């Protein structure tokens, strides 16, 4: 049986939530002050996820386009997501929210643009 302590980041209280797991089953959760904190700690222990923010190269420009995963992806897949961003080049006339890579790194989550991008004459 494993006991893990997760410090919740959802509010300034910063509760130290203690989660006991047996294999992959949650046995007990203590130390939270609200239900959101309880859920957060359980998620961090059983299925930790993150939103990945990065950039991709754009065809015809030396500037980069800022992107992120539309939803949090498993922590384990972060490096794979990053690798895939290096292998694509976005083309021009992008609007914020446009999907740049569908189902990035097979996470089931899309990689989307976080800004509009028109190809301009490159400035030095």
């Amino acid at each position, binding site marked *: 049986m494993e006991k893990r302590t997760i410090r919740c980041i959802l509010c300034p209280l910063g509760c130290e939530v203690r989660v006991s797991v047996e294999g992959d089953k949650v046995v007990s959760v203590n130390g939270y002050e609200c239900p959101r904190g309880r859920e957060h700690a359980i998620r961090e222990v059983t299925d930790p996820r993150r939103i990945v923010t990065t950039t991709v190269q754009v065809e015809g420009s030396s500037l980069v386009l800022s992107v992120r995963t539309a939803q949090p992806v498993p922590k384990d897949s972060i490096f794979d997501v990053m690798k895939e961003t*290096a*292998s694509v080049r976005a083309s021009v006339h992008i609007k914020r929210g446009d999907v740049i890579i569908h189902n990035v790194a097979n996470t089931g989550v899309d990689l989307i643009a976080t800004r509009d991008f028109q190809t301009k004459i490159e400035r030095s």
Partner: protein
Amino acid sequence: MLPREVDVAIIGGGMMGSAVARELSKYKVKVAVLEKEIEVSFGQAKGSGAVHSIYGPPGSLRCKLTVESNPLFDNLAKKLGFGFKRVGEIIAALTEEEEKSVDAYVKFAKSQKIPIRKLTKDEVREMEPNITDEVVAASYCPMEGIADGFAVNIAMAENAMQNGVPFYFETEVKGLSLLPGGEDYIVETDRGNLKARYVVNAAGINADDVARMAGDDSFSVFPLRTQYFILDRRLNGLVNHNVKRARPDPKEFWRSYGWIQREVHGSILLILGAEPGERDIQEKDSEEAFSNTREGFRRALRQVQALVPSICPRDIVHMFGRVIAYPSTGDFLIKPSEKSPGLINICLQHPGLSSCPMVAKRVIGFLDELGLSLEEKSNFNPYRKPIPSLGELYDQDPRYAHVVCRCEHVSEGQIIEAIRRGAKTLDGVKFRVRAGMGRCHGGFCSPRVTKILARELNIPVEQVTKRGKRSNIVKFRTKKLLGSKS
């Protein structure tokens, strides 16, 4: 590619190496300058920029060459196109003992026919409104000048190159020995060997190592650290002259350990030299050699506040340390080696810039005595044009109006010209046109200069360095690291 054989090999492309190269370029002599850094002047100590009227104990070679060189600078500046200004020097006394030093200084200057006069307290305050109330007397010498040490070094080197003396960079001398027969040297470098009849050792802080390669262990170099503190540009005009503090001991009237220096570009610099016996750094190449100390900062501040009380710590915006080579023999060492014939050793100390014209002439004199044939070139061109200023060549090249460094107002055209003249690194550009020397210290312009260097030198951005070796600005392209092919 190194030549196979030269008449004179000059080891070191710093102030002395370049000065000697320029002198030799007047004659039909085959010369090569071997410099281990990537560009001219990078091995230089970087002095204060002062062109002293007097420095060194009376009777010393140091004093003689400094005093003799000073008057030559107006002409030299005009020919070589570097900025030079005679701002004058005020040595202020705050006590009676110090006033004795001032008197000794005035007496000595007059004996050397250097224009000088003693000032009354009122005269000092009139000439320097910001100076302390406590000043009791001062001397004023109008001959003291200022220049940019890098600019002078680069100008001399460019003129030498113009007149047929090649400089070889990233070329480090590893061995120096006489061939059997004793007539020629084999100079071994990390880029090959060359044969030279005469060798001029202008290796600065490494001069003793070079001499020892040839079996000459007659002197050592001690590293002395000088610390520099640059004041914010809003304090430009704080002083009208270089202001020094008179020594408490009149026997040392000629020395100055720290002073307020005007720079030829307008900024004010506080100099803090090492006190005698203060060998405060152990290793020449150490990080501490190039750093400042808290104690140094405090001391420099105390020194300047004694003269100009209105200065506060916040006024110091930049600082760095530099190593000055100090020969174990005490005085300037410029002489043919006794142990290794045909080798001329140069090992100086402060002031290098102030004395370089006469040091070079002295070296030529020795080469002459040693038998080098000095036939004058008819086509020697003593003139070297400076890099044009912002906007100057605008109608021929609009890039001279495209500002890249906003702090110092440096245009793309000037940066391109600096590269054309030999700058390969950020510092090379900086020392030639001042891009990166302003208030933000390259924060704004460095990426732009980096891109311009990559474009003009036709190299990938990853290969541009700050000053050679492994100082690359861009180490990796992150996407390339992740496997991107483009």
